[in-house]
């Protein structure tokens, strides 16, 4: 610690800190534009010039490290003159078009100009004009307003991982632009809107629709991935106008992924279901709530009575709130069924009954940055978990060795230490190779179950290169002091998910490392806590669809997109005598298979709780009133329970549901444990034929984001194609650019594209999209022929 003095105030400051950090920590504000605590120091705006005793000229506080005994004056005549002079330079070419600028009212330049600007301009020459750039569907540009602080440039380079923006040209001709007419395609691109201290970069979906002071600011929690980013939702006239990050250093820091930021458009979608509807004689009719609920209760009673309650299945979206899940489970059990599940994209349930607890991240989110060795298994990390990937990117920059075992080679924009890309069926083999290699390095006898793997074994079809990579990864992991093994969505959806879990467990045990799951959805942990999983003799999500039920209850789920096998899900729902859907949307599919549509609130119109992937309990309130006749799902379930005369449905509030479940605990849940007992490790042999690699593209992943129109116009939401490597294309006799018929359970006709990141004998076809639903399961062997 050093002693310094700022504006006469003696301070103790950590060595190596910059003056501006020391000042801000002490509550002394120094005006600035280019400085941002999460970005590298540019010192280019010069707004933070301050006077330092004995220094001959004013120094930028953002780039001047504290030194012992330093005396700093942030408001002295010299400092203020320097700051005002800089402000004059900044404003001379600025258009001063605040009345028509979307940044008005939340503009750093505007705010600081009040304090440091002059009321009259000395600059009498013609002002500079800069042409606008097309950065894509999300970020609008008014580049004449740009003050060249380069925050956006540094963000794309340092946080998002790819320098998609740069400063071209020199002097006052300097312009921020993307690389030769490219758009900014980062899944984190929206953050540059927040970072821009002027109105040069504004939100394309939001701009011109409201002023910041006209809107209410409400806290909320992101309903998308397992991170549970904290949100500020801005609302006006009971409509969500936009979403901003609520800073939480433990979770999203000051960032949001584009999905979290722009998915609100789906809240105001024209597809919103706002009135209860029932299908009578093949015709849909809007009805009153009591009619619809009676209808639903009657159907439930009828099936339970005539076919047995086991014929009733409840499919819950993993994005539903904890309270909704709790009541859904209660309702299912109340009517005598044990068939409930929220793990809709999961294919392997063999770990059920063997789990020691609720699967979770295995550590706190913030710990990710402190790891020095990480093995990620089966994850489209950057698109599935944009901000967790960002944390690992920062860890890698600090020297952490990050390795990936996966079936795709999408650029994670993280400096990977090693990467093995194998066919889906080979994922367990590859992981087993790593386990074996680590055991060998540790001098521990390998699990006999893994004997078949690798050299001399029979199970492995792993190439020499992949075996070598396994050795490399093992050596890296063993050398670390803080290692972790992370299983991604792909590993959780894998047909041998339990085996992968067991192998990861074994690997972590050998290493003394942590292992965990990257939670796919907002309530991937909450679903277990709420008991939205089948009891021992109940049916899980896959079983309910494989052996079709007579009646399905859907809570927020769109099974055609949200289930592991959309085609099978559709078939099961279509054959059912009754489908009761609690949903925020009326999709064409739901209108086809459902009999009752009950309009329930999306996260913005209900109170509720998400438990994030680290087990953090995050409750939130409704930010707007439910649209029209929409009602919070927990209330709908409660009333349904009442109508069915079930016990224990007399809750007054969602908090009551939560508190009863969690015993009043409101920080972190207990019972988190990734271990599974006595798992037989039967390493499968390689699949014969062509295998499907199915990713769930970022903007197709849940019902809300699928209806966010601006996100649907981004590169990340492009129509799925059949991506095949050159060798496999040749083997199949197909050329890139051909239309191909891909078949598994069903058929899909897709454009074949060359992608050398796809392993041999594999075709990558995205799931969760209308064009590929007909194909069938996410993991399958396929036929491919020219259409």
């Amino acid at each position, binding site marked *: 610690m050093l002693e310094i003095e700022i504006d006469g105030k003696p301070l103790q400051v950590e060595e190596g800190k910059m003056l501006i950090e020391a000042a801000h920590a002490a509550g002394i504000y120094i005006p600035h534009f280019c400085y941002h605590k999460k970005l590298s*120091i*540019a*010192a*280019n*705006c*010069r*707004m933070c*010039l301050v006077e330092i005793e004995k220094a*001959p*000229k*004013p120094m*930028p506080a953002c*780039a001047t*490290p504290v030194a012992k005994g330093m005396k700093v004056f942030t408001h002295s005549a010299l400092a203020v003159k*320097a700051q005002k*002079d*800089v402000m*004059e*330079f*900044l404003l*001379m*070419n600025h258009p001063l078009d605040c009345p028509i600028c979307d940044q008005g009212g939340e503009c750093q330049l505007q705010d600081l100009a009040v304090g440091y600007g002059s009321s009259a301009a*000395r*600059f009498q*020459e013609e002002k*500079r004009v800069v042409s606008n750039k097309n950065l894509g569907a999300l970020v609008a540009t008014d580049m004449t307003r740009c*003050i*060249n602080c380069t925050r956006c440039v540094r963000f794309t380079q340092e946080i998002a991982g790819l320098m998609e923006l*740069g*400063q071209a*040209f*020199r*002097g*006052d*001709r*300097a312009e921020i632009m993307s690389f030769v007419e490219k758009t900014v395609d980062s899944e984190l691109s929206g953050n540059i809107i927040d970072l821009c201290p002027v109105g040069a970069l504004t939100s394309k979906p939001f701009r011109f629709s409201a002023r910041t002071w006209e809107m209410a600011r409400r806290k909320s929690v992101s309903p998308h991935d397992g991170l549970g980013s904290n949100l500020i939702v801005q609302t006006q006239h009971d409509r969500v106008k936009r979403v901003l990050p609520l800073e939480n250093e433990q979770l999203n820091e000051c960032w949001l992924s584009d999905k979290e930021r722009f998915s609100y458009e789906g809240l105001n979608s024209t597809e919103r279901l706002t009135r209860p509807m029932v299908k009578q004689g093949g015709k849909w009719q809007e009805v009153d709530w009591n009619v619809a609920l009676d209808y639903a209760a009657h159907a439930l009673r009828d099936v339970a009575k005539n076919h047995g309650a086991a014929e009733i299945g409840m499919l819950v979206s993993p994005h539903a709130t904890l309270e909704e899940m709790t009541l859904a489970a209660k309702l299912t059990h109340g009517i005598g069924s044990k068939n409930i599940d929220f793990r809709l994209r999961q294919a392997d349930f063999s770990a059920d009954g063997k789990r020691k607890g609720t699967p979770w991240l295995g550590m706190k989110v913030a710990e990710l940055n402190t790891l020095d060795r990480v093995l990620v298994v089966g994850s489209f990390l950057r698109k599935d978990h944009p901000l967790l990937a960002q944390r690992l990117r920062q860890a890698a920059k600090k020297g952490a060795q990050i390795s990936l075992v996966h079936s795709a080679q999408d650029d994670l924009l993280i400096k990977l230490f090693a990467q093995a890309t194998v066919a889906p069926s080979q994922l367990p083999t590859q992981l087993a190779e790593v386990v074996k290699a680590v055991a060998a390095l540790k001098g521990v006898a390998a699990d006999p179950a893994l004997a078949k793997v690798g050299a001399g074994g029979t199970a492995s079809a792993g190439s020499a290169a992949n075996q070598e990579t396994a050795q490399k990864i093992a050596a890296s992991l063993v050398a670390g002091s803080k290692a972790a093994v992370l299983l991604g969505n792909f590993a959780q959806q894998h047909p041998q998910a339990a085996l992968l879990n067991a192998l990861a467990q074994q690997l972590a045990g050998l290493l003394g490392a942590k292992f965990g799951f990257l939670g796919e959805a907002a309530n991937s942990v909450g679903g277990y806590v709420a008991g939205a999983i089948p009891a021992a003799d109940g049916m899980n999500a896959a079983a309910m669809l494989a052996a079709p039920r007579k009646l399905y209850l859907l809570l927020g789920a769109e099974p055609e997109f949200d289930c592991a096998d959309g085609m099978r899900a559709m078939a099961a729902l279509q054959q059912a005598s009754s489908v009761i859907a609690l949903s925020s949307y009326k999709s064409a599919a739901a209108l086809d298979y459902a009999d009752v549509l009950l309009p329930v609130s999306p996260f913005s119109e209900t109170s509720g709780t998400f438990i994030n992937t680290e087990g953090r309990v995050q409750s939130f309130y409704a930010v707007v009133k439910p649209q029209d006749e929409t009602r919070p799902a927990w209330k709908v379930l409660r009333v349904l329970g009442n109508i069915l005369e079930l016990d224990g449905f007399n809750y007054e509030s969602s908090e009551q549901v939560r508190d009863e479940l969690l015993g009043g605990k409101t920080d972190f849940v207990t019972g988190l444990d990734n271990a599974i007992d006595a798992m037989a490790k039967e390493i499968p042999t390689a699949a014969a034929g062509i295998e499907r690699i199915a990713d769930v593209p970022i903007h197709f992943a849940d019902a809300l984001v699928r209806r966010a129109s601006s996100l649907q116009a981004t590169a990340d939401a492009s129509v799925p194609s059949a991506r095949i490597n050159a060798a496999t294309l040749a083997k199949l006799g197909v050329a890139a650019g051909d239309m191909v018929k891909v078949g598994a359970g069903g058929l899909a006709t897709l454009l074949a594209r060359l992608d050398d990141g796809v392993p041999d004998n594999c075709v990558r076809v995205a799931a969760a999209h209308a064009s590929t639903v007909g194909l069938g399961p996410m993991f399958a062997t396929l036929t491919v022929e020219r259409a």
Partner: protein
Amino acid sequence: MAILEAINPTLTAGWHQPDLRDMNRDTGWRLKDYEARGGYQALKKVISDKLSQDQVIAEVKTSVLRGRGGAGFPTGLKWSFMPKGAPEKYIVCNTDEGEPGTFKDRDIMRLDPHSVIEGMIIAGYAVGATRGYNYIHGEVYELYQRFEEALDEARAAGYLGKNVLGAGFDFDLFAHQGYGAYICGEETALLESIEGKKGQPRYKPPFPANVGLYGKPTTINNTESLASIPYILRSGGQSFLDLGKPNNGGTKLFSVSGHVNKPGNFEVPMGTPFATLLEMAGGVRAGRKLKAVIPGGSSAPVLPADLIMDCTLDYDSIAKAGSMLGSGAVIVMDETVCMVQALERLSWFYYEESCGQCTPCREGTGWLYKVIHRIEHGLGRPEDIDLLNDVAGNIMGRTICALGDAAALPVRSFVKHFRSEFEYHIEHKKCLVPRDVQKAGSTFHTRLMAGALC
């Protein structure tokens, strides 16, 4: 240009004259010629006398060789800032000679490239760098090519590469061609440019001696500084210092341009009276009266005739007169010059060359130019002169690098010494110097009329 005359030459001794018809006919720059005039003896002496790194640095400190690029920072002291024991260090030669009026490094590179190579090897040895880069200005591509040839010769002779002359240290040297941006002559922008990035200065600290090229400790010296090293090691630092005057060691090249009879490069000892240099350059042409001199390249403040005629050519004397010796580029202006027009041209240069990174320079240089342009074109307002002074003052000392100061200093000095011309311009919407006098004095005009190639 060429080396026209010298007093006690150390750098240019034995140089051949350039062939003005075709550079390919130049003689005397090759390795054998350089060796014949004592080249690489300094390096051999360092090796045979087993001089330690510290001894080499001490010798350079003794010589009081001050950086010839313009700032005049003592070279030996700069070398001593390099951390000992760092595994990877660099030495970089700054041949990005872009300062208007300066053309000395061009002649060194053209007529004596091996002196730079030898200087860099010795510098590399002294600071413990095993790799060097010579960053060569983009508009002298043929010199880049020549330097590559010289490097080949040096490599073949064992002066470069692994185990230099069997002495047990490695040194490799590479030429890097710039693209003509003035800002890349700023040492940290130069490093960025070598790294393949946009040439923009870095904020200092950290200084290059700690975090330089590719993040490694780096020393950057001017071409002339490095070319002076062989003499210092060969003849001793004291002998070099004795050539000049205390605190201003050695001889220096001066590029004299403008309204003199014999423009060109001259090598004179530090401390030589300005009048002597002016005389060597043939005096002011056509017997006209000297009006002003920019003594150290375009960013140095202008000095009116009476002030400069009292100066001697060394860092201290010129600093005392209110300007800088800078790179030794002496721009001579006679009575036919309109100072407003001259400043307009200079300001346009800095406006063009500002990198655009930091606010005061990015915005201020354009503002200065636009106001001066207005005054020159009869649209000036009385308050403009104070505005110029003030805007220039608001740029100075507020920027990341020295380009801001470089743009502001001429403005402030022109306004200070020639305020009446600016006032006349604003009041009468024309020059104080009559148009026909200006026209008669224009070198460009007379040369063009004579059918000469510019």
